[in-house]
């Protein structure tokens, strides 16, 4: 068959065309052997772009297509579908990545970028040349979903999917579900109690028979592919038999060990056997083996003695749960910034300088102060300064905006006035007010109407060294008022630092387990910022909530619902396209040595004892190519990644190009 290849070069607006000479590359592509048409267009992935390809297939009888644009993870499927619609076998379509691998990474060397793009295109044409039509094969989808992280994002996704009648494995690292939302007092812009919203959702999770809730657990391994993942979950020992415990609380009432409560940000004490907060779900305690005296020296077993159901099990071992999964949803949330390194703010040194997560605990009725705002000495503050953007929008820490701090800082204003009276002085030290959500600007207006002092400027220093009588016994906030252009000193009783939301410190482990990418800000990378903000680069894995970037509860829930729809769509389709590029044997050449059989991870190859040739089981072959790399006679080849193709590609790639010529 004489090859007729069409090459399509995308400008991607200015993402490609802005950094390399698209016209020159197109002219060059037209001169390449087997290329019968080369075109460039603003956006190849748009409908007119796809139509261009479809028309050429029909009118010029193309039997090979190379689209030179973004990464194949983004649009290979789009272009293959377009080809299929025009009657061309989709496997005859290939992409050359001239955006991620070229224009974006060589954006200050137009000529070199152009030359490299030309080399990538020439090599791409070679790849198309050796491709053969393949039959698309389908695999069934396991209708189970894995959700990692049970904050509001994970909870909401789980309820949607389980509500549609499908099995969900909801895995949470901590002893209780709820995530950070459980630590908040009231929420903007409605000033509703967060627990009034969250607790019913948590209870619904527990009550739902379709949800297998695995708390105190972590994912250790994920293998497989979309529709057919295999995951291993490690259930850390609680030292309490979940089947026997009825959550009566005798054990934690009697436990003599007290340690700072993580949930209350160290502002209260918890026991060595504990539930993180009163409304925890499941309401089953966990023994902290690092502080429990039984585990330290065997000197105490009060909990076991008082437990009416004999649920304490000091010998409980780690458990492993294995599950078959169709779609994975990662909703591992965020951490908050520890402002200790910004020493001039006095956090950790000056009393009554607190972070926003600590302040949230104070505002919570179930918190360490019972919902009262109090100073260390037990009295109520008369003046409070709130510092915005601590760690956010800061070249030294996080460049991004955390998106919720302006709003929750305003929430603090309103709550302070409400709880402590209208004569409480509230100062907001801000850089810019960002109140962009629904009802947010209105909330800003109401807060302003209540008489808040807005000072535009970043806090330079918080000190307790007075310069006047008025400042005695106070915290003095030193700040430049950039609107007035003067330095000011504001004496207050309490300073709240609105700290940045940041990627969790254990993000990288999760990224590695799920093969997820991370964007420059450290959060998980979405497949497409506009068109697929919940997908990731790995098919069948979605990232939702604050692990994908800072956002408020409404946006988190919106995204969670989106991910649930995606998982449900996969389940209702019921099948996924399988790797078509499996290994295949040239029986004329195969000597039956069996090296391939020995190296195959999946036992997909066997040597037929009678015919003495290797036989590939295509249903089992995953297309990794280990056998092809090992075959001494090169009888074994990966379909569409054959030896001739690679040799040709290498030839093209090593041709002189750019200023890179010797």
């Amino acid at each position, binding site marked *: 068959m004489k090859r007729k290849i069409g090459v399509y070069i995308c400008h991607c607006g200015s993402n490609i065309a802005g950094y390399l000479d698209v016209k020159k590359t197109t002219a060059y592509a037209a001169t390449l052997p087997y290329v019968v048409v080369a075109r460039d267009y603003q956006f190849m992935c748009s409908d007119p772009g796809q139509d261009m390809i479809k028309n050429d297939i029909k009118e010029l009888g193309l039997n090979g297509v190379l689209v030179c644009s973004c*990464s*194949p*993870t983004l649009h290979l499927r789009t272009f293959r579908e377009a080809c299929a619609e025009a009657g061309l076998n989709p496997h005859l379509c290939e992409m050359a*990545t001239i*955006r*991620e*691998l*070229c224009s*974006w*990474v*060589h*954006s*200050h*060397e137009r*000529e*070199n*970028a152009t*030359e*490299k793009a030309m*080399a*990538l295109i020439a*090599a791409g044409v070679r790849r198309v040349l050796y491709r053969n039509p393949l039959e698309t094969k389908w695999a069934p989808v396991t209708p189970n979903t894995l959700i990692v992280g049970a904050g509001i994002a994970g909870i909401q996704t789980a309820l949607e999917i389980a509500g549609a009648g499908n099995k969900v494995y909801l895995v949470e690292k901590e002893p209780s579900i709820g995530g950070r939302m459980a630590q908040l007092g009231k929420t903007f812009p409605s000033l509703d109690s967060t627990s009034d919203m969250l607790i019913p959702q948590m209870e619904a999770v527990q009550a739902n028979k379709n949800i297998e809730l695995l708390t105190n657990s972590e994912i250790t391994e994920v*293998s497989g592919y979309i529709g057919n993942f295999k995951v291993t979950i490690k259930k850390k020992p609680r030292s309490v038999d979940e089947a026997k415990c009825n959550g009566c609380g005798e054990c934690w009432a009697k436990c003599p060990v007290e340690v700072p409560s993580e949930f209350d940000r160290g502002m209260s004490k918890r026991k060595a056997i504990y539930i993180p907060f009163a409304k925890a779900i499941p309401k089953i305690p966990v023994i902290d083996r690092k502080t429990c005296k039984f585990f330290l020296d065997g000197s105490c077993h009060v909990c076991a003695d008082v437990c009416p159901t004999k649920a304490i099990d000091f010998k409980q071992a780690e458990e492993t749960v294995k599950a078959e999964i169709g779609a994975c949803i990662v909703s591992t949330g965020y951490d908050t910034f520890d402002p200790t390194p910004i020493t001039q703010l006095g956090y950790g040194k000056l009393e009554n300088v607190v972070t926003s997560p600590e302040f949230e605990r104070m505002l919570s009725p179930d918190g360490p102060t019972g919902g009262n705002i109090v100073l260390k000495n037990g009295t109520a503050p008369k003046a409070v300064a709130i510092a915005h953007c601590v760690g956010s929008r800061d070249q030294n820490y996080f460049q991004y905006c955390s998106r919720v701090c302006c709003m929750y800082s305003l929430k603090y204003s309103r709550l302070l006035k409400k709880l402590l009276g209208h004569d409480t002085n509230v100062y907001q030290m801000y850089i810019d007010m960002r109140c962009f959500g629904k009802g947010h600007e209105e909330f800003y207006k109401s807060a302003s109407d209540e008489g808040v002092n807005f000072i535009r400027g970043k806090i330079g220093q918080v000190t307790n060294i007075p310069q006047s009588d008025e400042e005695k016994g106070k915290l003095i906030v030193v700040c430049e008022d950039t609107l007035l252009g003067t330095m000011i000193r504001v004496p207050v009783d309490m300073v709240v630092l609105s700290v940045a939301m940041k990627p969790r410190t254990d993000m990288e482990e999760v*990224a*590695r387990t799920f*093969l*997820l*990418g*991370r*964007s*420059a800000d450290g959060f998980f*990378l979405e497949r497409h910022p506009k068109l697929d903000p919940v997908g990731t*680069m*790995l098919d069948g894995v979605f990232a939702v909530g604050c692990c994908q970037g800072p956002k408020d509860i409404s946006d988190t829930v919106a995204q969670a619902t989106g991910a649930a729809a995606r998982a449900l769509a996969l389940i209702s389709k019921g099948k996924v396209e399988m790797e078509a*590029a499996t290994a295949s044997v040239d029986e004329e050449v195969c000597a039956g040595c069996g090296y391939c059989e020995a*190296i195959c*991870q999946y036992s997909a190859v066997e040597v037929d004892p009678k015919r003495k040739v290797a036989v590939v089981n295509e249903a089992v072959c995953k*297309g*990794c*190519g*280990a056998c*092809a*790399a090992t075959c001494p006679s090169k009888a074994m080849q*990966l379909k569409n*990644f054959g*030896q001739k193709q*690679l*040799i040709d*590609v*290498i*030839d093209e*790639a*090593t*041709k*002189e190009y*750019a*200023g*890179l*010529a*010797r």
Partner: protein
Amino acid sequence: MAEKKEQFEPKIIGFLCNWCTASAADLAGTTRAQYPPNMHPIRVMCSGTVDPMYVLKALLSGADSVMIGGCHPGDCHYVSGNYKARRKIAMLKQIFKSLGLDENRIWLRWISASEGPEFARFIRQITEETRKQGPSPMASDWTV
């Protein structure tokens, strides 16, 4: 063609595993990391599919060095492809040594999908190192 530069510009061929290093390369792009254009990327399904023959072929065709990028040990999408790659490349390097060829022109690296900055850093490094090594004599001294 661009004007010839004064310094030697090495030509590097990179075999990038589809699941990790190629993804890291995409990420480097998405985050607009900048690195020299000397490496020509070739996407492969797994580092374990890189037959040493292809490495040899690249060097004989004029590459000054070759990189193979795979998933970190334990993370291979096909379970053990990267271990196979590790053995194959170790063996190839041995053969290079015994033939008096420069085995330092072959670089096997584990770069995961999330390590975009590491990918960019490595491309800068391999380009610099290869530049120091100078043109590979293999293409001109040997014929296939």
